[in-house]
């Protein structure tokens, strides 16, 4: 990855800066047992959430999938703070579901099962018509590959002694 020529306002830069900041916060509290398996798992969760969140924020809610991700993360953190009675906060945006269904039946039938599978993989996919789904998927993939690239580079840098 060519670090020197990064455009400061590029998606990659914005994501990297946010993610690094989050990593520093996650790593800040140094307790004696900072290497216990439970701590490592909690750190893993926080890192993964930070990565997804950083990318979604870096896209600046210009996309359905990024808005859905941010919404999902917000509802999840809110429900965790409340005493939960085992209720899973997996509420999906259904406001445009009925509209999406009309177009789904027309073109979705052609690509049937695969489109359904894709809807589950792309955040907010359930409510998208096929056109949006394909368009959002392309953008989502680009962002995911950037995310993976940066995470891998950071991990490699941390691996250097």
């Amino acid at each position: 990855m060519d670090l020197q020529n990064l455009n400061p306002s590029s998606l990659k830069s914005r994501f990297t800066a946010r993610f690094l900041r989050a990593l520093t916060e996650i790593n800040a509290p140094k307790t004696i047992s900072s290497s216990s398996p439970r701590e490592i798992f909690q750190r893993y969760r926080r890192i993964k959430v930070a990565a997804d969140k950083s990318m979604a924020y870096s896209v600046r809610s210009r996309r359905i999938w990024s808005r859905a991700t941010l919404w999902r993360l917000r509802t999840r953190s809110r429900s965790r703070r409340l005493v939960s009675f085992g209720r899973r906060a997996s509420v999906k945006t259904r406001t445009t579901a009925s509209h999406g269904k009309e177009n789904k039946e027309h073109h979705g039938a052609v690509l049937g099962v695969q489109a359904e599978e894709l809807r589950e993989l792309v955040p907010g996919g359930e409510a998208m018509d096929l056109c949006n789904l394909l368009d959002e998927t392309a953008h989502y993939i680009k962002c995911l590959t950037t995310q993976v690239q940066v995470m891998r580079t950071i991990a490699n840098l941390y691996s250097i002694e």
Partner: protein
Amino acid sequence: MSSRRSGSRQSGASRITDDQIADLVSKLQRLIPELRGRRSDKVNASKVLQETCNYIRNLHREVEGLSDRLSQLLASTDTDNEQAAILRSLLM
């Protein structure tokens, strides 16, 4: 980066053409390493979507694996705050 909006944003009068779908599908095909080299008329849309799902799942797994790796690394290094600062200064 083009932010092409499909005409299907309005309720009711959404005329998504097959051409639009075909364009979007071939755009996706170019992003999938598995299918990138093949000619678009030889790969049907169903296959593209199938491979897209597989590719996204792989990417999700990579994110999980890297998060795991990072959590181990953060636990073991002492100078990570310095390293993070160095990394950030390289990028600004």
